[in-house]
Each structure stands twice: as structure tokens, then as C-alpha cells.
């Protein structure tokens, strides 16, 4: 659930930033999200999340 909630938040946040007109480096943030997601899933696999 947590990793899925994290992805849901990131998708909503990215959409908000895209629509806000502010400068948004989507590639960089997507890479950061993927890195955090790997860690979260690792925690989930280890039963710590």
C-alpha cells in the first residue's frame, strides 16, 4: 500500500506541476521517484513497511 500511495502522490504532484506553468524537470523527478520507490519496495519485501 505505501509504495502505491507514494506513486499515486507523485503522479498527482507531477500532474499539478506540469499544469502550474512553473519550471519542472520531470525527468529528474521521475528518476528520484523511481529511486525512492525501489527503496520502499525493498522495505516492503523485508517486511519493514
Amino acid at each position, binding site marked *: 500500500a*505505501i509504495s502505491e500511495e507514494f506513486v499515486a*502522490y507523485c503522479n498527482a*504532484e507531477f500532474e499539478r506541476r506540469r499544469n502550474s506553468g512553473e519550471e519542472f524537470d520531470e525527468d*529528474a523527478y521521475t528518476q*528520484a*521517484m523511481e529511486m525512492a520507490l525501489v527503496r520502499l519496495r525493498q522495505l516492503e519485501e523485508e*517486511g519493514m513497511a
Partner: protein
Amino acid sequence: MIIKSVKAENVLKYASLDLRDLPQQGIIAISGENESGKSTIGETVCFALFGRTFSLGYDDLDKVLRWGEHHCSVALEFSVDGVDYQLSRFLDRDGSHSARLSRAEDLDNPIARGVNSVADKLFEILGYEFDEFVESFYLAQREITTPHPHSVAVKTMAGVAPLEYVASSFEEEIAQFDEMREELDAEAETLRQELHELDFQEGYLMELEDRKNALEAEVNANKSAVENLEQAADIYVQNLPQIRRARGKRSRARFWRFLSFVLALIGGGAWFLLAQKPDLDQSRQLLQLLQQQLPNWQDAWIPYIGIGGIVFAVLMLLFWMRAASHGSRASRLAEESAVLGDALEKARAVSAFEGEVETTEESPSAEDSDVAAGEAMNLSITEEARERPEESAYAALLSRVEDVNADVSEVRDYVDQETRWLREQITRKEEQFWSLGQEVDQEMERVRQVARLSEVIDGLEAKMAELDASREKRLKAIELLEGASGYVSSNFNRDIRDLVARTLPVFTQGRYEHLRIDPDLTVRVFSSDKRDFMDLDEVSSGTQRQIMLALRLALSEKLLVRRVQGDQFAFLDEPFAFFDEERTRYALKALTDLSDKLTQIWIVAQVYPEGTDVEFARSIRCSRDLDVLEA
């Protein structure tokens, strides 16, 4: 987790506690007067699971032992999602504390032994630890405080804990990156300083090599000039006698040619006058002269005079040709010797060595012999050799050489002096050439050092850039994780509020229906009477207790959803202490319908109101006078 049995000896109040065949669903009602041991049952379960109770921490464990006893033990049988386990724990006054966890079907082969090992295995099976347990499924007596928003338990329930854990791990990595970057930066700065101290100038090596090559070309040209001068001088010296002989022969041939011409003219003229114009006065005078000089003169000799003229004419032509031949040879030799003039000019064009030869202590070994030879050559150079022939001497000689008038000794003296001077210049230039060679080698070594240092610095800067990129990436990840934490917390608060809204009206008989939970878990309750939200400390302690019970049950529900597999028990120690009988009846009814997963609910109360619609799955009656309880 559902409790199936509890068996304890010498734990807190009880010498023996034995609760068997506990129902997996419904309310287990524990009742009894003050100090009859109702709470001890919950504390015993807590001790069995976590090795401590709500009120007694790990440092006060000896107080778990019944007064006067040396040791205590507890065995808890429970099931998680259909799998039965047995957990046993032993404690004595000497501080010996042991634990063992087995599957019920295989008691001889425990799956964990020892306090820590059992704790780890239990967390794996249950999905929660002591902190989460006492913030959710276990409501201790008289506990009416709100959960701390920053407690691990609440964060776990909200799902924020793993997000914060990952963010924290990124922060630690960033700190490591910063430390590594500082080290790399210091290393790079040291290397930059080394690079600066090398005082490297772009293009200096090329300039040195150009100078070296130019000097080498100049030395070769100088050597060539010396060689040409010597060869030209040899040719001149060799040709000069021949030129002079050829010129002498040409002069003599010219003399004889002139004499033959005169005689041919006289012979031809005499024949013409005597043979062709005998009537002329001049002819008669000539004949008279011949007759006087030659008494036997006969006119028949006149043709012989003509033949003599022809013979002298032929001789004149022969001498003409001979003079031309010697003249041609003299010219050819003079032309050959003219290279001396060019050689003199080229030698004169050689400039004197300018500057000082830099001598270094270290010379390339391969060039040692050459340098030694150069030094030996230097020793042989006399003061005289260091002087070049005067410009006037050069100009005079050049003029005389061009006319092939210069004597051999004159040429030899000049050329010897000039070549000695030239060789000294060549020697000096060669010394400078070797010096430049060493400088080029040193500069090449410096270029190699600069290249190596630059490469290392570039590598360090690339690593630093990589670290910066990794750092930036983690900062963005932390930003997202913190945003997600806020998002999850907000959802958590909303869910808690909705869950509380289901039970709070029942517990408060409709007087309080809505809660507002701030991000810091500050609870405010909406009063139907006052039509406004109130702080928790503005309502009565009884209402506070009711609100916190509703909140606790909501937190339990969240922990169930988040971490727990299968059905779960809850232990509520006197949750209705401030409820009147009617509200207690409502609350009991509400608890039975509270959750699909919170199926086994232990409730402690002094007495239960009569006339409740709820049928207890098990009733346990405690007594102040008894230290043995079986049910």
C-alpha cells in the same frame, strides 16, 4: 492475532492464571472489584508478548514477579491467520530472562529461542511491536492522552514510517556524499596547487621545439657553409696555377697570332703589288728594294712571296684558335673557382652566436660523449680563433677572388681564420642545442605531469559532479517523500476522523459526532450543543475518555489495515469507567459490530449493566481474595 489460552505462574497478582479454550470471536468480559486482578490479565498478555508490561519497563522487570517468589513463567497460545503458535517466557529475580516461540503442531522444534530472537520473529508474524500495540489494541487503565504524533507507532499506522525511513536513509547518504565531496575537493585543491606550482605555459613546449629545430637547421647550415668554404678554397687553390698557366699560354698565342697576321699582311701586300700592279711607283720601289737586298733576285720568286703570305695567314688562324682554347680553359677554371666567392659570401652571412649557453648539472647520458667532445674542442680554440677576419679583408679578398687574383696563401689564411671562427660558433650553438634539448625534455616531463594531474583532477571533478547529481537526486526524492508523508498523513487523519465518526455518536449518545484532527494529531471535537469545535480539555474527563476510546479503536483499525494479517484481539482496560449504564450498553453493542477483523475484544469493567443485548463470549470473574484464576 487471536489469543487461544493464557497460562501463567507467579506473574504480578496471580500465583496461577489459567485461561483455556478462549473464544476467537466476541467479547471476553472481565469483571471484579478494585484490585481484584482484572488489569493483571492484560498485563500478563503484554508481558508474554513483549517481555514487558504497559506500566513496567525493561528496567523494572523484577516487579513482574509475584511478591516473595523467585521466578515466574507465562505460556501464551495464539493463532495468526490460521497458524497456531505457543509463546513461553521465563523470568527470575537473578535477572535470567528467556523466551521461546514454537508452532503449536511442532513444540519440540521452536522457531525462535531467546528474548531478542523471539522479538524479531514475533514482529515478523504479528506485524507490530510493543509501541504500536499500546497505541492501538491495548488501552491501559486511566490512559486518556492522545497518541504522540511523532511516535513510531502512529507513524507506522499512518504509513509514514517507511517514507521517513527512506528519506532518512537518503539524508544519511547525502551526509556521506558531502563528506566524500569535501575530501575529493580537498584532494583536487591540493592537485590544483601542484599544477599551479608547475607554472605550465601553454605552447611553451612547441616554442622550445621550434627553437631547437631552428637551431639544429642553423647548425647544419653553418656546418655546410664551413664544408663548402673549405671545398671551394681547395678548388680555388688547385685551379689557380692552371688558370695562370692557361692565361700565359693564351697571351703567347695572341702574340704569335699578331706576328703571323703582320707577316701574312706584308707577304700578301708585296705579292699583290709585284704580281698584280707592277706599274705602280710603290711596286717599282719595292722591286728595287728587293733587288738591292737580294742580289740573285728573280721575278720567278714573286709567287713564293704570295705563298708565304698564305702560310702566315694560316699560322695566324692556328694561333687564334690556340689563344681561344687557352682562354676558354682559363675561363672554365675561373668559373669553377668562382664558387669560392659564393662560399665566402655564405660563410660571411653566418651570424655570431648570441646569448649564453645554460649548463645543467644533469646531461642526457646518450649525449655525454658529444658534450665531452664539444668541451675538448673548446679547449683547442685559441684567442686568435675567436676573432673573425675584418670586413675590409673579406671585401678585398672577395674582389680579388672574383678576379682570380688572390694568392693561395692569402686565401688559405683567410679561410683558415674564418673556418676556425665558424667552428667555434657551431660549437656554441651545439651546446645551446643540447641545452635546449634538455629543456625540451624537462618541459615534456612537465607536460606529462600536467597531463597526469589534469587527468586526476578531471577524474575527481567528474566524481564530484557525480556526487552532486546523486545528492540532487536524493534531495528531490526526499522532497517527494516528505510531500507523500503529508499526503499519507492527511489521508490517515481523514480515515481516522471517518472511523471515529462511526463510533463516537454511540459512545456519546449523539452529543459529539465530528472530530477534527490536525496534522499534529491535535484532536478537536464538534459540540452539537455549542455548535462549535472544542479543544479536548474543554470537555469533561468522561467525554475525553469516550473520545479517546473511539480514537483508539480507529487507530486499531488503521493498524489492522496497514500491518496485520488475519483477525486481531484488543484489550480494553475499563473503557467505560466514565460511561453511565445506558451509554455502556450502547458502547458494548457498538463494539461487537465495530470491525470485521477486530473480532476478539477483551473488556475490563468492575460491573456490567444489566439488560444489555450483548451476549458475552466468555465471562471471567476476578476476586481480590483469590491468587489463582482458572476460566
